[in-house]
């Protein structure tokens, strides 16, 4: 995600942090509600392909500093074991990246519910994760785009990690931003261990653009 080509020193990043203004209480509230609506649509899509009830929780939104990103994501995902993850970029009015994190037991549960063998060949498992990830990211991005009446598109999904410890998936030195808006929603499959976490990252420029979009959204209500 936003992997940087040139090495930037920590001190450069620290300077950039100072320029990010946090959202107001009303902007945060509006964003939370927009993500909540989008999450509901994604949860419904997931429930339909799995034939199971999907338990939703309150979306979590944090402004994170690059040095704290692993700590924050680990606490959100609440999992220090190996995970698999897919990523998709989104663009147009807001640029950022969505990552869907699956715990290994979750991947097995998904395979089972979708009628695959639980002892899935690695290529079939990858395909399954890409399909489920794409479904969730597509629904969330479309939900946000419809609610905010702003154009958003997203790239095809790619596999980011397979059975890898979380702290090797997100490596702060490889991230090109110093500060990111992190939005997390999670989907738990009722009666199963399966849980997937959808994380959306937006860097400085998108944070500022979204501020204006949220203000317009609130003015329209």
């Amino acid at each position, binding site marked *: 995600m936003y992997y940087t080509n040139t090495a930037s020193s920590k001190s450069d990043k620290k300077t950039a942090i100072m320029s990010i203004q946090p959202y107001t209480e009303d902007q945060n*509230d509006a964003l939370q509600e927009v993500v*909540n609506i989008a999450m*509901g649509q994604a949860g*419904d899509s997931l429930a339909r392909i799995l034939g199971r*009830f999907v338990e*939703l929780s*309150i979306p979590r939104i944090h402004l994170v500093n690059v040095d704290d990103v692993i700590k924050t994501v680990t606490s959100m995902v609440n999992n220090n074991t190996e995970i698999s993850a897919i990523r998709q970029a989104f663009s147009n009015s807001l640029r950022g990246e969505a990552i869907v994190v699956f715990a290994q037991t979750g991947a097995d549960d998904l395979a089972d519910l979708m009628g695959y063998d639980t002892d899935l060949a690695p290529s079939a498992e990858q395909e399954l994760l890409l399909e489920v990830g794409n479904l969730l990211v597509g629904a969330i991005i479309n939900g946000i785009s419809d609610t905010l009446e702003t154009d958003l598109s997203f790239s095809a999904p790619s596999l980011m990690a397979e059975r890898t410890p979380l702290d090797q998936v997100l490596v702060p030195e490889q991230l090109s931003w110093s500060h990111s808006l992190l939005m997390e929603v999670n989907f738990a499959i009722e009666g199963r261990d399966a849980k997937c976490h959808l994380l959306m990252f937006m860097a400085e420029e998108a944070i500022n653009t979204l501020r204006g979009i949220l203000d317009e959204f*609130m003015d329209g209500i």
Partner: protein
Amino acid sequence: MAIPVTVVDDSKISRKMVIRALPPQWNIELTQAENGEEAMAAYRDGKAEVMFLDLTMPVMDGYQVLERLQKEQLNTFVVVISADIQPEAQARVKKLGAMAFIKKPVKTSDIENVLHEYGIV
């Protein structure tokens, strides 16, 4: 006489969206609640003859409110307004005594249809 109506949602903008979608000619006494506990308190104060109820909330969620109302055999007309649009979520809240389910983002016509259906407006 004004009908006591409580709008329950943890999100301020979401409450605003619901309130804006209420029929303008409807004579109500409006109360807002940020979670299920506040909703129950509003009910006990006689402020919730009609309740517009969100599901996903901190402290006490919408499902817990419905369970409490059902268990204590309390009588209020509950309309659930939720982003959780799964058919199963709709079936569950109806089983718990909600009269209607409306998807977020809420539209004026959705609320009007429910209120007309039950002869409330």
